[in-house]
């Protein structure tokens, strides 16, 4: 069942001079109850703008967000249904209030519990759900007495207090110690199953995106360039940008050579990205064109979103799609496209020693 349906979402920020900057361009996707959708992309790709629009912190310039198939849901009902976990657990809790306050207020403000014993019980239940026990002791503490992982659990409990149907997680583990990342992600996964949550997991970590989500969308400069089942997108990336991303993330078992190569690719792409950020995309063409090793003449036009994986049983396929001309025109693709796989992400003329 679709919990949140996003259609042609466009987020634009006014600029001092010139046209508004379009951070998200005609983005469509839907979140389903009990499923996790990962949104992957480098910084500046528009991930946070998507979250801000979904949490109604900014008003989208165009497009619509449908909650349970309805548009323009009233503020109060929408806030009950859509909640968010912030990236930095050290900034997302108010230093002058206790944990109890952080959980009690959303319960009362959204009318999920009445003042007094009922709220007490609800706060304790929330803390137990995120494995913060003994609940009574934790509730009395202030954020500065908790570790990063504990704080993030409190932040998750706060987001769960209004009993939302949709949970937006903005890089929930990127500020945490590596040793507790898995714990927090497993917690989110368990809560998703228990409460039948629709989870949007925003990250730039491909490995966790693959393990904790059923579907992945890869964003580049405000557009989704590739989407599909997570295993397919990560193991068999088709869009040149996704390949670059996959190549830039070294595997744990990578040899020293591979690590060095990956770092070189990463640094190079960062340098180019910085130079590119100020550049204005002209016209409708593919936004990845300046960095793409396979750029063709046709890339000056807006690329189509094409089905890349062959449908296994002719039943519409797995939904693995890429926004690229390479797959629109079989003739062009046959000539330009090397064998699939992460290793192929390095352009041939660069891979030569």
């Amino acid at each position, binding site marked *: 069942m679709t919990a949140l349906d996003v259609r042609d979402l466009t987020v634009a920020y006014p600029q001092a001079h010139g046209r508004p900057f379009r951070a998200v361009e005609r983005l469509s996707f839907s979140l389903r109850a009990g499923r996790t959708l990962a949104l992957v992309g480098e910084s500046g790709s528009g991930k946070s703008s998507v979250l801000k629009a979904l949490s109604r912190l900014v008003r989208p310039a165009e497009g619509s967000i449908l909650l349970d198939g309805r548009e323009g849901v009233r503020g109060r009902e929408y806030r009950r249904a859509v909640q968010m976990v912030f990236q930095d657990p050290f900034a997302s809790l108010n230093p002058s209030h206790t944990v109890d306050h952080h959980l009690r207020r959303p319960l009362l403000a*959204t009318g999920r519990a009445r003042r007094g014993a009922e709220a007490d019980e609800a706060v304790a239940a929330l803390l137990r759900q995120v494995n913060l026990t003994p609940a009574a002791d934790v509730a009395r503490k202030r954020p500065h007495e908790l570790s990063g992982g504990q704080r993030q659990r409190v932040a998750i409990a*706060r987001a769960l207090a209004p009993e939302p149907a949709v949970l937006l997680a903005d890089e929930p583990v990127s500020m945490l110690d590596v040793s507790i990342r898995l714990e927090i992600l497993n917690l989110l996964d368990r809560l998703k199953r228990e409460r039948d949550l629709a989870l949007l997991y925003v990250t730039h970590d491909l490995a966790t995106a693959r393990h904790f989500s059923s579907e992945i969308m890869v964003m580049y400069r405000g557009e989704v360039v590739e989407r599909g089942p997570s295993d397919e997108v990560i193991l068999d990336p088709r869009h040149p940008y996704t390949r670059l991303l996959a190549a830039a993330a070294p595997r744990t078992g990578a040899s020293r050579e591979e690590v060095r190569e990956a770092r070189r690719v990463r640094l190079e792409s960062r340098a180019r990205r910085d130079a590119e950020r100020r550049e204005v995309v002209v016209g409708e063409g593919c936004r990845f064109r300046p960095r793409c090793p396979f750029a063709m003449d046709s890339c000056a036009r807006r690329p189509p979103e094409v089905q890349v994986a062959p449908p296994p049983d002719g039943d519409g396929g797995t939904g693995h799609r890429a926004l690229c001309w390479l797959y629109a025109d079989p003739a062009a693709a046959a000539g330009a496209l090397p064998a699939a796989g992460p290793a192929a992400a390095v352009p041939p003329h660069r891979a030569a020693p």
Partner: protein
Amino acid sequence: MTTADITSADATHAPVPAAALPAGPSGGGPGARLAAAWRTVRRSRRLSAGLALIALFLLTAAVGPLLATDPQGFGTDLSQPPSGAHWLGTTQTGQDVFDQLMVSTRTSLLIGFAAALAATAISVVIGIGGGFLGGWSDEALSLLSNVFLVIPGLPLVIVISSYTKGGSLLATIGVIAFTSWAASARVLRAQTLSLRTRDYVLAARLYGERRWRIVLVEILPNEAAIIVSQFIFAVIFAILTQAGLAFLGLQNPSDLTWGNMLYFAQNADALSGGAWWWFVPPGLCIAVFGAAMSLVSFGLDEVLDPRLRVYRPARRGRAGRQRTAPRRTAPQQQAARRQEADR
């Protein structure tokens, strides 16, 4: 589960640092809070010294006027130096300086605290209101505070108070508050601008917290330290301004304040006449009270911000440890020094 272990282990000793904060732990009765506050005060010498001095002033303001026998009454002892009969001597017209000081303290402190309270209230409303609302209301409110900031304060005060002819106490308080809120309003606005986009404020907006609650409950407590220190300096400023006005003869001379005492001393040539007992006590009162308020402010900073805290072992502990601690042998000392160096 690891977390459970950690939290349960914390529970045994965690309340100690929390209790040391003035805000105190959320649990515990008023007795526990009072004990926690007392420990906080004891931790900073500046704070305890400043609070002791202010307590003395407040006590004087409370009971002094009851002890004083007619401070305005003229006596037959003219311009007498301090003696058993007149502890701080007498004025040129035979008034008892000690009695005058007792009565002045109450009026001066009243003006200081009332004007500071009003000025702080205005700056909180305009600063935090503008910073939080943003947009046109912020533009208008910061324009207002900018205008008040560039108006030269003292001349305006002089103009207004000469218009009110010294006026009542209330007029004095109003004039001082009216001209002194702008700087704090700007500081609070800047702080609010930074706080309103913090994640915890966004989170409160996400779960649909009402605006006034976000301002009062989520933002205001995080600015409490700034507001308190601004209030303290506003008190000093108000007392100094009132003394300045009185010294210039712009206050109702029948109200006894420290400034008015200085005004009469100056008019009677006490300085050139060598009647130091007339002008030194009120001058000293102003200086000591200002210093005490500053001490409280610095002491609070020290207590609230752990980074400013100077580590100082308790006095009793220091003496005791020297006596009881076993003397280190030379190799032990070397080892200790090596450890220090490694660190």
